[in-house]
């Protein structure tokens, strides 16, 4: 009787699990290209964008998501809830937003900094709601930052499957091998969310990741 019960339970969960959409989070430091990548996926499969992109750090200051995004790869399809999160940082200085590239006045800069700090807290609080996470890092800068290590460490501790995306491979300074060396135990895929370079390899990796979720 117990065996039958367990079998029925397993079949039930298997059936419903396949129907469920997978919550796929985009995490990483500010300006790594999380929203660009989420937009690229949304554009490819729904024709719409998910969020706005800018060169100014902390452009995404609220968690934003798109549900029912169906991705197809090699005649298979999976439904995802894409969750784009604000970049995680250990410091936020409003004076940085007043520097020449950003040209914000003090009031605007302070407002942005306040929203950025709230966004970071929100990002961390959403971690538990993820079935799988893509950690987006900028392949043109040093990957050994503590923020990257802390995010990946947390995902491992919460048993959430991780894929590391080395973004911005269109830039001359990009070094995917360095990212692979920094995270030897994880799948790393190099892409350019901006140009779409290597996007098929990325979708293949997303399907592999979804299997672990």
């Amino acid at each position, binding site marked *: 009787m117990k065996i039958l019960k367990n079998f029925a339970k397993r079949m039930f969960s298997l059936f419903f699990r396949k129907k469920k959409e997978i919550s796929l989070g985009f995490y990483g430091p500010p300006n790594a290209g999380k929203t660009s990548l989420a937009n690229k996926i949304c554009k490819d499969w729904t024709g719409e964008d998910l969020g706005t992109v800018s060169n100014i750090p902390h452009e995404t200051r609220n968690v934003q998501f798109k549900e029912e995004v169906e991705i197809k790869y090699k005649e298979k399809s999976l439904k995802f809830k894409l969750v784009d999160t604000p970049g*995680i*940082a*250990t*410091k*936020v*200085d409003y004076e940085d937003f007043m520097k020449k590239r950003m040209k914000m006045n003090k009031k605007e800069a302070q407002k942005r*900094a*306040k929203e950025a*700090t*709230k966004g*970071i*807290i929100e990002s*961390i*609080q959403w*971690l538990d709601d993820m079935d799988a996470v893509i950690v987006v890092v900028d392949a043109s800068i*040093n990957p*050994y*930052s*503590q923020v990257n*290590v*802390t995010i990946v*460490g*947390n995902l*491992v*501790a919460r048993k959430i499957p991780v894929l590391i995306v080395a973004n911005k491979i269109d830039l001359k300074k990009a070094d995917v091998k360095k990212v692979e*060396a*920094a995270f*030897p135990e994880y799948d790393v895929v190099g892409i350019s969310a901006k140009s779409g370079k290597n996007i098929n390899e990325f979708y293949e990796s997303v399907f592999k990741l979804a299997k672990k979720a």
Partner: protein
Amino acid sequence: MAKKKNKKAGSNGLTLQFMPFSEIAKLNSLDRIKKLLKIILNNKVVVLQGRLKADEETRLIEDTMIMVGNISGFKGVELAVISQDAGEIGKFQKLKFGLAKALTGAHNSLTIIGPATIIKEMKKDPKKLEMMIR
């Protein structure tokens, strides 16, 4: 809510406070973070033997962000952990470190945390850690 003032923010000089892991070993996560942030708010850089747990590191970031919004002059922290790369040691050594970690905490690591008003940047690569002061 009135903003608290970080009186010492912006003062010159660098003070390193070395902390053996035993100082925080018996504390719960909340108290560990409180203790570290209290030192950082006094404009000191903590060099901790060992490292925090993964969830404690994110809790530290969360608490730091709350403080950025409430303590005038506080801009956050710079944080870096250096540890022996598990890939570079043999199986017996791994077992030995694993056992030591279980018994005493991760003592083959070193955590450096300091206020962002003092530390400009910490550059890390597999073999070295550089701390740039403002």
